[in-house]
């Protein structure tokens, strides 16, 4: 039977709810999976999956280079740049690499062919494997402003492989980095914590997935019997609650030590296998 690849994005809005915890354990439970770490500013999945046979690939963006000899000083490029990335200093424009968006506009607009583009490394990919899981981690160089090109590189590297599941570990928040990460996802798993901050940010991330028309379900992590605001909210909005993982000191400590609980704990293995099955059912519907 032909199995369609399922791309699952794991996101949360609020940081620290357990995106990586859910992502790495879901990946480990699948018979065949690719784990993509799109939290390129602060990637953590590799600490749990501990991939072997790791190879590195640089990720570059393009930066304009100005030829002083060809430049006639018309400043058309400086005027065109909407990011204020260019300033005319001396005999040619200079570029502020931290605000350049690599749009190619200055090269296009120059009437003298004085602008070429050269690659600039902003980060790299680390590709390895943990048993049946292909592990692809994106790392943005410290000091760089935008991780979006690194996220794009992670997703592209992942698309070169055909495994049953792709698990996309997303950055926190609801900004462009998150949107880039979930753009081609088939299903979004929203990991939420039942606290005042958690509920507030959950509402935001739910709004984002609705905007992008992505089917979604919720994992309530660090759940407790007392706080039911999330359950009530999900019931009201008809958002499926895929599973509830109770708060436990044992799990928290295991996580703190970088343990893959689905491999070390039978109950956790069952929880994540059932979660994977549930997601499959939701996608097929």
């Amino acid at each position, binding site marked *: 039977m032909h199995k369609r690849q399922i791309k699952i994005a794991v996101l949360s809005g609020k940081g620290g709810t357990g995106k990586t915890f859910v992502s790495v354990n879901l990946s480990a439970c699948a018979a065949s999976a690719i784990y993509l770490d799109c939290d390129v500013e*602060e990637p953590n999945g590799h600490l749990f999956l501990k991939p072997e046979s790791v190879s590195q690939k640089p990720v570059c963006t393009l930066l304009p280079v100005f030829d002083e000899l060809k430049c006639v000083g018309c400043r058309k490029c400086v005027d065109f740049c909407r990011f204020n990335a260019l300033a005319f200093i001396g005999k040619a424009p200079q570029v502020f690499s931290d605000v350049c968006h690599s749009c190619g506009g200055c090269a296009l607009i120059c009437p003298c062919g004085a602008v070429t583009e050269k690659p600039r490394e902003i980060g790299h990919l680390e590709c390895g494997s943990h048993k049946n899981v292909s592990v692809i981690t994106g790392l943005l160089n410290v000091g760089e402003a935008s991780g979006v090109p690194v996220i794009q590189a992670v997703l592209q590297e992942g698309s070169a492989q055909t495994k049953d599941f792709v698990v996309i570990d997303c950055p926190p928040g609801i900004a*462009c980095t998150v949107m880039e990460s979930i753009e081609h996802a088939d299903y979004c798993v929203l990991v939420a914590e039942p606290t005042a901050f958690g509920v507030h940010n959950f509402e935001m991330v739910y709004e984002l997935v609705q*905007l992008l028309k992505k089917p979604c379900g919720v994992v309530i992590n660090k759940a407790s019997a007392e706080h039911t605001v999330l359950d009530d909210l999900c019931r009201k909005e008809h958002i499926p609650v895929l599973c509830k993982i109770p708060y436990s000191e044992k799990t928290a400590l295991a996580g703190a030590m970088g343990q893959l609980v689905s491999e070390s704990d039978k109950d956790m293995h069952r929880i994540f296998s059932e979660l994977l099955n549930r997601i499959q059912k939701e996608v097929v519907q």
Partner: protein
Amino acid sequence: MKQLLILSGKGGTGKTTTAAAFIAFSNAQAFADCDVDAPNLHLVTQMEVEPQKSSYFGSQKASIDAKKCVGCEICVTHCRFHAIQKNGIACEVNALSCEGCGVCTAVCPHQAVRMEDDIAGDLMLYQGTTTFSTAKLKMGRGNSGKLVTEVKQAMASSVQGAELAIIDGSPGIGCPVIASISGVDMVLVVAEPSLSGISDMKRILKTCSIFATKAVVCVNKYDTCVENTAEIESFCKEKDIPFLGKVPYDSHVSKAINEGKSIATVESPAQAALKDVYNKVIRLLEL
């Protein structure tokens, strides 16, 4: 006015909880929430006035006039952000993917593309006995760094005579964090004693160092893993980074937050430990 910024690298370590506590301890005249993606500080700070609201304009977005467009797709070929697609006869811009570079307006042979203002978020400034500046970025938008800068500027330009401003930051190390670091006197990194927390702490400390900003560290929920807490403490000692203290895991904290209160108002082990860290920060800031 001295500015203290609270960062973490990792999400969920307790930045907002710490910021709210410090605001109460210091009777801070000015504070700001620079986590513009997912702001939470307003949930634990009671402001007695309504905010002044203003729109935040991010980059402009391209818009194609379907009547002028002939569907030649020259714009599609040149768009580096895959933001334009042919939809039927004419091309259409996906506003969420558009980065506002304007290349499409330059290459279109039929002048069918123009750039339009886009409201990318809302700024809110509360001015009562204290000044509180915050903002909310719209879904999927970029330019969060620029919005962070506007939040800080709004606070700085409306406050008079304040000694200390407390700024709640966002997770990560990218543009909103870099924008928040600019011009502050000190960064307090609230670290989590986990492998992820340690890895993330090292990257945010490196970010602070690249931008030549003094950083100090404290550990939150330290007793969830004393081994890792010890590792953080010795890392700080090795790198000459002031280690200001450890805050225990305390159920009073989530209870207070869920009631919309700062932990500063609840006598508890966490409150005492946070007060201790706060006093050390004040001494280092020479206030």
